[in-house]
């Protein structure tokens, strides 16, 4: 049976190496994918993911269980990725403060969860066009959209990662998709 987050954290803090390995196994794919989508450089992901978990282990004592452990680690992964982008002087075009200023979306225009990917078969070429268009979006729309495409991340998780309200995440995803459609139409 899988340990609960609290139990896993307690065992890691007690120095149980197997528990530490289980924590990494449980969250590594998500954390690495978050980093990859943020920095867009596959070569950097291994090192940055390692940095994420080392930071997580150092700060594990401060994990208070208010968010899921995976969300907490993805938040650290996002910060590690942002630090890397800053180091490369490819500063992201938004800050949490900027995102908070996004005007709220009308209720009936709220972004829905992404459609079931299995419901539609699309060609590799079509997917590649969408991915290229996504890469061309401004960071403020690209990141929430790229994170929302991860099945395990809900809007509330993304809100916590980016440090912005859930409504703003929905707005950014909705507007990001609209922008994506515009770019694909040209």
């Amino acid at each position, binding site marked *: 049976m899988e340990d609960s987050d609290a139990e896993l954290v307690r065992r*890691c803090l007690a*120095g149980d*190496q*197997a528990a*530490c*390995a*289980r924590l*990494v*196994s449980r969250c*590594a*794919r998500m954390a*690495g*994918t978050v*980093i*990859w*989508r943020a920095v867009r450089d*596959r070569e950097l*992901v*291994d090192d940055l*993911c*390692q940095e994420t*978990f*080392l*930071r*997580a*282990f*150092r*700060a594990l004592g*401060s994990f208070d269980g208010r968010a899921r452990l995976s969300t907490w680690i993805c938040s*650290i992964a996002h*910060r590690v990725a942002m630090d890397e982008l800053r180091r490369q002087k490819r500063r992201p075009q938004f800050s949490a403060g900027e995102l908070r200023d996004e005007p709220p979306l009308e209720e009936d225009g709220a972004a829905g969860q*992404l*459609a079931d*990917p299995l*419901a*539609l*078969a*699309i060609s590799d070429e*079509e*997917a590649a*066009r*969408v*991915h290229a268009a*996504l890469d061309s979006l401004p960071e403020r729309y690209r990141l929430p*959209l*790229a994170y*929302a*495409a*991860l*099945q395990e991340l809900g809007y509330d998780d993304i809100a916590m990662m980016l440090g912005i309200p859930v409504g703003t995440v929905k707005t950014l995803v909705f507007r990001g*998709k609209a922008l*994506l*459609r515009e770019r*694909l*139409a040209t």
Partner: protein
Amino acid sequence: MSTQDPRRIDAALARLPEWQPPPGFAMRLAALASEGAANHRYLWLPAVLRGGGIAACVSVGAWLTGELLAALLSPVPGGDEVLAWTLAAGSLFLAWHLARRQRLFHA
């Protein structure tokens, strides 16, 4: 259906590649974490050194600003009180801002 169809865009986004950890990644990190835990008692040291540096900078800055403002405000009645409060608030704000920038309190 075209690529602008929202459902097709969602389907394409769901096919964004996902990272897979290399073999042995979890075990390697668990070992590193254990090593880190062995040195855990020294982890506060860099934060204290950085915090000390920030405090020293803020103190010197506050002292120099204080000297300057005192010279300017000395003829003004009640100037000393205004100066003291301004310096206290300014120092606190600067210390908080620097600590935040240095990420002293974040993982």
